[in-house]
């Protein structure tokens, strides 16, 4: 697949939607990508299966607080320095760059690196959405260690971490990021092409672009963007089910900081029926949607909040009292719903008591679409 300069905004919109509320606003990433593509032209995405089995591939990602990145913008050299440091440690050149997450800012940054240093970027990622921690990726779930990994700040200061397991790597990386000013670029999950092929979620970059494009085209045609978006998912292999969970207004919003995450909940009431209510809990990303006491969707399935009129994705930080929103439930890719995956990205990893119930098996079957 080819990504052109004109595609960047659509791709960023799709990435914001797949961020399920978290992952950081892709705006800064889209500006960086446009800058880079203005210099180096369109970007050809590589198919996972075209990468040689013995080639080195690695993940490039931002780690830290997305709100810090909105203020302390990158120097532009960090990501490449982290990739080069890891290459130098491994004594081998990377053949391709991978995305860790297709949701939010980190959907854009690997493309910036690929575009800047002229390496192919593989069409796929390790989450199919956004997650808050380093080990919450299919690469790790399938047994590929995140380390050795490198972190680089705006000065080119670089830290290499070699850890006994990925939760430990997450712990050291997190404290390093704090010392680097709460935002750093990282190169991690060095894998062979074969390891990558056995663990990557394929074609998710294309999914993000298609989603953003569908939203824009529906808006231009004034054709109910939220409905068009759902129809678009129905035609994709990405997800087993995508449904409208709720249409409502935000009537309450609670946030607090617990152990470095934005944790909170919103309350919605139905647009037509104030007695119809939904509660959504989030920890950076939306975790759990409950309608009138019944579970509708739970992590790792995607719970996406969009503007009711425009289908513009709304991040956790952008939630406000009074917003009229549509809540979409999108089944996570099958690889995130296995027992092995749920041990890493299932509800209990976010402190939830509720067991994982696939979206399509919940008691609530979604709501009927309204016609204008």
């Amino acid at each position, binding site marked *: 697949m080819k990504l052109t300069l004109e595609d960047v905004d659509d791709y960023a919109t799709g990435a914001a939607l797949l961020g399920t509320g*978290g992952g950081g606003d892709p705006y*800064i990433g889209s*500006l*960086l990508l446009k*800058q880079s593509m203005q210099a180096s032209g369109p970007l050809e995405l590589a198919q996972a299966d075209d990468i040689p089995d013995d080639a080195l591939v690695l993940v490039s990602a931002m780690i*830290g*607080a*997305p*709100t*810090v990145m*909105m*203020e*302390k*913008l*990158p*120097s*532009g*050299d960090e990501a490449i320095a982290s990739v080069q440091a890891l290459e130098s440690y491994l004594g081998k050149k990377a053949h391709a760059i991978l995305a860790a997450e297709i949701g939010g800012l980190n959907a854009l940054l690997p493309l910036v690196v690929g575009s800047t240093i002229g390496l192919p970027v593989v069409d796929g990622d390790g989450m199919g959405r956004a997650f*808050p921690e380093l080990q919450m990726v299919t690469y790790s779930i399938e047994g590929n260690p995140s380390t050795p990994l490198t972190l680089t700040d*705006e*000065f080119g200061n670089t830290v290499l971490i070699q850890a006994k397991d990925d939760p430990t790597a997450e712990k050291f990386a*997190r404290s390093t*990021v*704090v010392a680097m*000013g*709460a935002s750093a670029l990282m190169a991690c999950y060095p894998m062979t092409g074969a390891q990558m092929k056995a663990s990557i979620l394929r074609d998710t970059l294309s999914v993000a672009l298609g989603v953003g494009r569908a939203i824009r085209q529906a808006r231009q045609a004034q054709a109910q963007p939220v409905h068009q978006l759902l129809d678009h998912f129905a035609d994709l292999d990405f997800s087993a089910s995508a449904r409208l969970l709720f249409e409502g*207004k935000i*009537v309450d919003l609670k*946030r*607090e*900081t617990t152990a*470095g*995450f*934005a*944790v909170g909940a919103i309350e919605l*009431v139905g647009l037509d029926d*104030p007695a119809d209510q939904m509660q959504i809990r989030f920890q*950076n990303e939306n975790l759990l949607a409950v309608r009138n006491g019944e579970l509708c969707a739970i992590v790792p399935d995607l719970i996406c909040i969009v503007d009711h*009129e425009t289908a513009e994705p709304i991040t956790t*930080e*952008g939630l*406000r*009292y*009074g*917003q*009229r929103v549509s809540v979409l439930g999108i089944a996570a890719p099958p690889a995130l719903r296995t027992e092995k995956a749920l041990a890493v990205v299932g509800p209990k990893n976010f402190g939830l008591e509720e067991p994982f119930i696939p979206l399509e098996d919940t008691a609530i079957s979604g709501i009927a679409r309204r016609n204008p």
Partner: protein
Amino acid sequence: MRIGVDVGGTNTDAVALEGAEILASIKTATTEDISAGVVNAIRDVVVLSGKRVADINSVMIGTTQFTNAFVQARGLEKVGIIRLGAPATRALPPMVAWPEAMKAAVYGNAAILPGGYQVDGSPITPLDTAAIKQVAREFADQGLETVAISCVFGPLNPDAEKHCAETVAEIMPGASITQATDIGRLGLLERESAAIMNASLRTLAGKVIDAFGDALAQLGITAPLYITQNDGTLMQSSAVKQFPVLTFASGPTNSMRGAAFLTGQSEAIVVDIGGTTTDVGVLSAGFPRESSINVDIGGVRTNFRMPDILSIGLGGGSLVTDDAIGPRSVGHAITEQARVFGGETLTATDIAVASGRAEIGDASRLADLAPEQVRQADTKIQQMLAESIDRMKTRSGDVVVILVGGGAILAADELPGADQLLVPEKFGVANAVGAAIAQVGGEIDRVVSFEQVGREEALASLKASAIDQAVRAGAQRESTEIVDIEELPLAYVPGQSVRVRVKAVGDLPLGEQA
């Protein structure tokens, strides 16, 4: 006595207010020479009030001139930009996302220099005074006279920008310097863009404010002049010369605040029906609810304090066809082109007259309209209003709706979704009333660590800073209160780092408080 003036695209309105009593009001046409129109409006309203010029304590003007000048790139100054934060931020230089035409009109030169802060307040790099001087010399050699300075995490600590501004002033005496942390919130690019916009408008602002001052002098008015800003509070005219950008979008704010004043409501939805558009906003604690999304002005992304306004293409001059009302409008030509005024164009105002909602113009000129056509058009108008009210509602159930603006005659006596529908007597000049009653405010936007200082203590300190800021802006301390606190935890940053915004407002000492 206070005089409130609203300078709109079509009309310049003025009111004379004593305490809470409206002594007089007037609507005049906006003139090509705007200050001449302001002189006319003030002169006439003073005569109508039966008072003398000497009785005027203060004059408040709301104007859209600066917004319009920026959007149309008229009369803008080229700006030299210094950003403190290198080596961070180099990937995205100043004005990176501006439309080419706007950039061409405003870009003078730009440098990213050492300085700036980390999120914990420690410096990224020490300031390089020699480098600042060097850049300032380049700006001066280029003939630039206006400078904008931004700094990474400047809102945490304004010292770096301040030092930079002082250094630039040494090399460029007389230059106009805008510091971004005086204007914007967190979000470097948006705050920096606001500072650049502001810098580009400084020269124009000087001229406009001086012209207003001359206009007042011409009338023999010696009372202080204030200009309204986008959050419903006032700026002294000298501050507008420094921060013209803060007047952006003050119009809808004024009409909402005016509506609140005229009806005594503090929680309501305000529907301001003009000649071409209807603006719907939400009053919360007597102030407009602010927008949560970044607002583009002239294609430039900003993070100003802006009221959350829903604008729809319905007004008194909206064209009525078989299948639509608006968005096209005859605008200010309504008094010639509408059927009831002798014209040939069927407008929303004609429908209001035909359906008996309003008695203006010559109703006999509508005799040929089929009752069914009138009924359908009127139903459509009421639907458009009801829908926009519903879209802005924050909760279902009881809601008070206030109708203002010259086009308020379009609305029925009852609207679905409106528990109570209020149309104040002076509905046509609510915006000028809003200008007349504007308060002064102070706002603090900081990242703090609740772990280090404790939430209660941190909030208390921020509230005190906001109140101090309002008092510095001219508010009477005893009338100043906190109207808004917003906390936004920073994900991933340990130590319970929270971004807190606190807003305080208070009354100006006018010697006539009711």
